[in-house]
Structure formats: C-alpha cells, structure tokens
C-alpha cells in the first residue's frame, strides 16, 4: 500500500504515462551516460510502472542521469523517461537527511574556472 | 404557475446519421452499454438532413432535449454533410440561446460507428444535463402537451 502511494506520487511528479512505453529501448540506446548507470532509462519507466521503486531509490543511478533529454526527444512514443528518473530522484532527496550535496562540500570542489552555473545546477539536482 | 411534475422524466430525441452514429448506437446495444430509455433515436441519412424545423418541432411537441449525432468531421459518408450540419446547428443553437432558451438543451456530438462506448456515454451525460435543466417550458407548445 505504502509502495503504491509512493508510485502514485512519483507518477504525479513525473506527469507522464509509463503505459505508453512499447519497450523498444531507444531511450537506453540513446542515453549518453548509460554505462555509468546501474538502472537505465527504460528500467526506470518499467520499474515505476510495476511499483518496483525501492531498488531505484537506493541506486546511484539517480544522480547519474544528466537530464540531457535525449531519451525524451528520441522516444517514439513520447514516454519521457527523464521525467520518471527525476520523479524518483525527487522522491529520494525530498526525504529528510537525503541531501546528496551539502554547502560544506563545496569549497573543496571549486576550481579557478568553475562556473556558478555548475554549483547552482548541482544543488538543484542533488539537494532539497 | 404549473405544479412541478413529480413523475417527470426527460424526453430526448436523438437524430443519428445512418452511417456512423446510428451504427455507433447499434454497437452500444451490441455491447449492452446502458443509457436511459428517455432517449429515442430517429434515423436520418446524414446529420445534414436534420432540418432546424425538426428540432423546433420536437421541442414544440414536448421534447426536453434534442441531440444531433453525426460522423466525425472529415469522416462523413457523404464527404461534407456534417460540415454543413455543424454550421447550421451552431447558428440554430446560437439563436435558441439568444432567445433565452437554457444552454445545453441542444447538443451536437460526433460519434463514429466504432464508438459504441462514446454513444452510451454521450447519451448518459446528455440525459444528466437535461435532467438538471428540468422540464422544457420555454419552447413547448402547451396546447400540444396537454393533449
């Protein structure tokens, strides 16, 4: 039941329909960061659809999606896999204590030419 | 003032084109999709056969709602009939509205031969609308009704 609620929440956040997926795998064929990821775009779609969300929440893959939107762009069925990944990521980092990145970590990561944009985007993606 | 009729049930006339909507109604029947018995269907070859006179006549004789169903625009069996019907009905509805007749007493819906479900849903929702609007008082001919 609880899992079902989580699934509904994720589907709402994602605002996309996993049932449209025809399992062609083009999203995962197009994904530029596939090899770094444990779960891949098509698996996010399918696992959210099946309510199999726990493994996704635990996976590093959440932080490896670059939101480059090629999966959205090239999907023949307009499934928008990136939205599912984002929704699961939000479900994770919105929980207390699940921030991936803290301000304390930043000074060590700054280089001479690190653009502000990198810090802002990373915070948006990894922290709530 | 007339006393509100407790036993009132809406009377609805549906004009259905032979090729799409009448077939859609048949399909609703074949699939046993319920809609209220208040709906009575009149078969016409095409929605463009529906003369505004027919609709006014139905109201005159005591109908509470009239719905015209035809093929979806672009799918008319006669290629363009429903496009003409669309303009005529738009203008007629506008005139009825202008004369102060309640919005919603008339409707046009495009139902294909494959849309039995849609036909039943349309009729259900139309009956609901008419039920909430209540008896047609503004267009009826009382002389006809009391017969």
């Amino acid at each position, binding site marked *: 039941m609880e899992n079902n609620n989580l699934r509904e929440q994720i589907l709402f956040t994602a605002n996309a329909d996993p049932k449209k997926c*025809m*399992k*062609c*795998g*083009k*999203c*995962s*064929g*197009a*994904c530029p960061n*596939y*090899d770094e990821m444990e779960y*891949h775009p*098509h*698996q996010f779609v399918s696992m959210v659809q099946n309510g199999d969300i726990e493994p996704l929440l635990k996976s590093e893959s959440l932080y490896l999606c670059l939101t480059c939107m*090629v999966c959205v762009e*090239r*999907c*023949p*069925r*307009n499934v928008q896999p990136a939205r599912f990944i984002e929704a699961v990521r939000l479900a994770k980092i919105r929980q207390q204590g699940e921030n991936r990145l803290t301000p304390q970590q930043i000074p060590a990561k700054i280089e001479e030419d690190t653009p502000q944009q990198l810090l802002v985007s990373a915070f948006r993606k990894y922290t709530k | 003032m007339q006393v509100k009729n407790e036993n009132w049930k809406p*009377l609805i006339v549906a004009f259905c084109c*032979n090729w799409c909507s*009448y*077939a859609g*109604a*048949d399909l*609703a*029947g*074949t699939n*046993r*999709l*319920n809609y209220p*018995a208040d709906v*009575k*269907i*009149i*078969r*016409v*070859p*095409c929605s*463009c*056969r529906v*003369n*505004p006179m*027919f609709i006014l*006549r*139905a109201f005159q*004789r005591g*109908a509470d709602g009239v719905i015209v169903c035809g093929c979806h625009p672009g799918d008319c*069996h*006669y*290629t*363009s*009939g429903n496009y*003409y019907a669309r303009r*005529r009905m738009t203008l007629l509805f506008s005139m009825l509205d202008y004369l102060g007749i309640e919005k919603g007493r008339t409707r046009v819906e495009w139902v294909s031969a494959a849309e039995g479900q849609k036909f*039943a849903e349309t009729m259900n929702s139309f009956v609901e609308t008419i039920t909430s609007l209540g008896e047609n008082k503004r267009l009826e001919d009382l002389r*006809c009704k009391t*017969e």
Partner: protein
Amino acid sequence: MQRIGVFVCWCGSNIAGTVDVKKVAETLGHEPGVVFSTDYQYMCSQSGQDLVKDSIRTYNLTGVVICSCSPRMHENTFRKAAASVGLNPYMVEIANIREQVSWIHKDMETATEKAIILGRAAIAKVHLNAPLIAGETPVTKRALVIGGGIAGIQTALDIAEAGFEVDIVEKSPTIGGKMAQIDKTFPTLDCAACILTPKMVEASQQENINIYAFSEVDEVKGFVGNFTVKIRRKARYVKEELCTGCGLCTEKCPQKKVPDEFNLGLSNRRAIYIPFAQAVPKVATIDPNYCTMLKTGKCGVCSKVCGVKAIDYTQKDEIVERKYGAIVVATGFEPIKVDKFEEFAYAQSPDVVTSLEYERLMNAAGPTGGTLLRPSDKTHPHTIVFVQCVGSRCDEKSEKGKPYCSKVCCMYTAKHAMLTREKYPDTEVYVFYIDVRTPGKNFDEFYRRAVEHYGVHYVKGMVGKVTPENGKLKVQASDLLDNRQLHIDADMVVLAAAIEPDKSARPLATMLTASMDTNDFFTEAHPKLRPVESPTAGVFLSGMCQGPKDIPETVSQASACAAKVIGLLVKDKLVGNPCVAHSDEMMCNGCSQCQNVCPYGAITYTEKEFRMPDRTTAVRRVAQVNPAVCQGCGACTVTCPSGAMDLFGFSNNQIMAEVDAICK
C-alpha cells in the same frame, strides 16, 4: 389510409427477455391504420418471413412495420420478402427494439414502453411512405486503374482477361512501381524482376489493356458506371509511337549528371533516359529540368542520333478524356523521408541508407552491379547494422513518424540480413528490433532461418545514436535482454523507414470524393466485409493505398478488387438507391443554394415554362436532381427555404411524423 401490418420479433430471448412482445403487438394493433399485429419468435427466419408475406397477402397490407433488430441488420431481408409478394419494398419500416431497447434496458416495463413508442414512430412514418422505384443507369464497360505498380498491373490483367477494357494511368515513365526496384522477394527469395517483368510485358501485350505511362489524372467527374476522367499525358519530348527503345540517345546524351530516381540517387543517368532495361513502355523520356536543349536551346544530340526521328522538343502536355464504369485506386506507397531521424546520421554519412536503397545496392542491375559496396568509398562493408521501425509505431501525436506498423519491414530486413550473410559470410550483421512481426505463411520460419542458419545477430533493443567518425559509423544501441549498451563500429547502417501512402493519393481522393484516414490511407467501404471497395460507389482499392501490405497480400487484394470491378462492369444497368432527393418544380425558387451544397454535383438547373394562375405563362429556373448521381444525403433539403427539395424515404413529413409520434 394505409393498411399496416405490425410484426414484433422476439429474437429468441434477445428481445422477448426484456420486452413484453405480446403487449407491444397488442398495443400497436390499436394504432390507426394498423389492421394486423402479431409477434413471432424469429421474424428473420424463413417461417418468420413467410408469416410477413402471408399476412401481406391475407390482409392486403400496404405498409409493414417490423419491430426487431437494427435496420442495418435486416432491413433488406424484409424489404426483399415484401417485394416477393408484390409489396413495394420501401413500404417496409423497421423499429429497432433490440439494439436500442432490449439490449440496453433491463427493466421490462420501461423497455416495453420504449418499444411501443419506437413502433408508433415507425407506424407514423409508414403512413407517409410512398412506393419507390429505383432508377437505372447504364454502365460504361471500361475500367480505369490509377497506378501501374504490381497492384495496378494485377488488377488490370484480371479485369482485361474477363473481357473488359482497362486503362492504366501511371505517373512515371514506366509501369512496374516499387516492386521493380526490389531485388529479391521474401520468403521465397525469388528475384522480383523475374516475376514482375513478365507481368509488365503481359500487360503491354494484353489487347484489352491500354497503358498511359507518364500520365496523371487531372479531373474526375460522374458517378458509378459513368465516370468521365481527364488524363494528362505529360510531355516526354519523345514520340511514344515512334521510339523503339533502342537506347542510343541515352548513351549519347552529354548531360550525364542527373540523379537516377530508379536507383534512388545512388547513381546518375542522362537527361534523356529509360528508367530501366525492362521498362514498359520501353520509350525514352527527356527530363526537362536537365536537358540542355530544352533549357538553353543548344544541343540536340539525341535528336541527331535518333534513327526514327522520335525526338520532339516542342511536345506539350496532352489531355485525353475517357469514360469509365469503374475506377481502381492503386497509387501505392513511398518510404518516409528520414530527415526527422537524424540521430541515425542519414544526412551526415552516405553509408547510412534506407532499406529501399539497400535493395538497389544488392541488385544485380543496381548502381554497384550487385556487389555490396559502401556508397562512401566503394569498399566492402564488414559490419552492417539494421535498424527496424524507423518512423513506424510512433506516438499518435508524433510529428516525426507514423502511428502504425509498416508491416513489411520485419520481413524485408530479415531478407536483407540473410542475403547479406549468404553472399558475404565475413560480414557481421546486427538487426535491432522492438518486436519481430512475422505473421504469414513461411514468414516466421524465414526469420528463424536468418537467425539460426545464417547467424544474423538479432538484438532486442534500439539504436539511439549513430556517430560517423574516421570512416566508421559508431553505433550506440541498447540490448535490452543483456541489459547493456552496445557500441558497434559499423560500416553501414540500414534504416527500415516507415512506409506512407504516395503523395498523389490525397489530391486524388478529393477528385474521387473517396474518404481517407488520418494517415492518408484510403478507407474501405467496410474494414472487414468490403475491404477492396471505397465507400464511394464505383471506386475500388488495390494495394498499399489502402494500408501497408506485402506483395502476396497486394496481389490477392488486386485480384479481389478486379473481381469486384468485373462484377460491376458485367452489369448492363445499375439499379440505384431510390432514396434520393427530388425537387418540386412548382415550389422551386431556382436560387441555386441546393446546387452549392450538393457534394456530388447531382443538381442542375433548367428553364421551364409555367402557366400562371392568371393564365399567362412564365419561364422559371428550377432545380432538377439526377437520381443516378444523388446519394441521398439530404444536404440540399435543409438548404432549400421553400421546402421544394425533399428526400424520398426520409421526407420532411416523415421525419416530422416520427418526431410527433415520439413526443406524443
């Protein structure tokens, strides 16, 4: 006053289970004009029909109301029964108490009440019915086939063999269509040319067939049995009747850099050309976009070398007008343009080709003489990646692709993969698929052979990106079953582009007033029961113009289509639908509004002399309906302000009587 008989059908328990049929028959029996009323278990059965017939005779019925299933089901049955005992069939009306009553209502009282009301409406209508007699029109015993591909050729041959004349109109210089470009055919792998070209020759030699190649349909008028068609014979700048097809001109033409359509631009042809060796008619054509003589007035080489003086630079398009009884649409298909799918780098690398281009690269008469060479550097490819479903099965709202399955790609891709592996066993062949769809005789066996016997790598997944780099095509794709991303350095990538109807189909459909679906495929009169006819009478469908299909299916549909055409042409006269519009000349204003809304051009005007009440005569303009052309939609009747225009079978009076009966 009519003498009406009412017949209430039980339809077993289908109606009687919910409707009190006895009560319906009893109640309707008291309606004015009803002289006989009864119920019966199965009115459509032989004995049920006999009951109707006997009653018509016994009670001298002038009208019949059947309370039964939908008129779409058995109206004809009962009309025929009535006609068999001398009652005009149009005196029969049906009250639909099954689909509209018993099947949708559960409560017996409500259902019975509604059945009675519908029965009353039908009785009210019959009171105003009049006997109708269908008109007859003669049939022009010649057929037009639009499109000279395998579908058109087969239909034409079958019609011609039944003894009717057929004209084929083909827009390109030769008949043969897409099949002529194909190398081998699945699943038997016989060569397309070997089975197609004999049919092309047969078509050209069949006495009853006349081929208008390099021609297009400009205008269609008329109706079933009586079409008049204007055909534009485009200027070839070569006299077709003189040209022997020797080909000398095509060798001597100095303009050598014209992309060859037949080879899909993979090779060049001359400005004067014969598309391929077995072209029918084998006649040269000058391409005015490239011919130096036509463009600048200087050259004339072809004219000089032509031994029979067939070249005519002054030739103009010519319009021929012909009459036909039936028209067959066989306009076929095209592969979609893949420019919206540039992730596959089609525009970036010549080594990314479409499947039809691959056919040409494999073909012995193709640009490489049948040796498989990469278009970029003419070397032998060692790794080939096939991508299925490029532009097929897309989201309905997609702006890039089509929502349907193109049906033939799975099989031709299996064929390409198999042939490639057979000819060049050193080549690695990958096929990326979503599903392999092989319903068809010997189809799945064929596909399995490609995998099991020829070792084609079938990968469940999709290519996501092709990156041309250093002479290779870096293919990035998913392998869903292994859950990994593949990176293949390929030499060629072959795209199974979705198919779509030929561009000429839509304007043609408008000319024919034939309907199309949202994908521009022609719609059938009935998707299951009348699949080779268009809803427009006299227009028939053959081949891919109706939907994706392979060659065997196309040929069977083509022959089925021919059978339907023959069935029409064999008739001397056509019996029309008598439920047509008619104009009361006494009331007609002659205002032309009905003519403006008639989709069939069935209404004409004539000046008629009328005697006025004051004994003078006046000439008035009045409408006349051609009953053979009118299809009975009724658009005119509502446009007519005076009510002069009315529709037989659905007259203003009849419909209003039904309204009254329902609203009583």
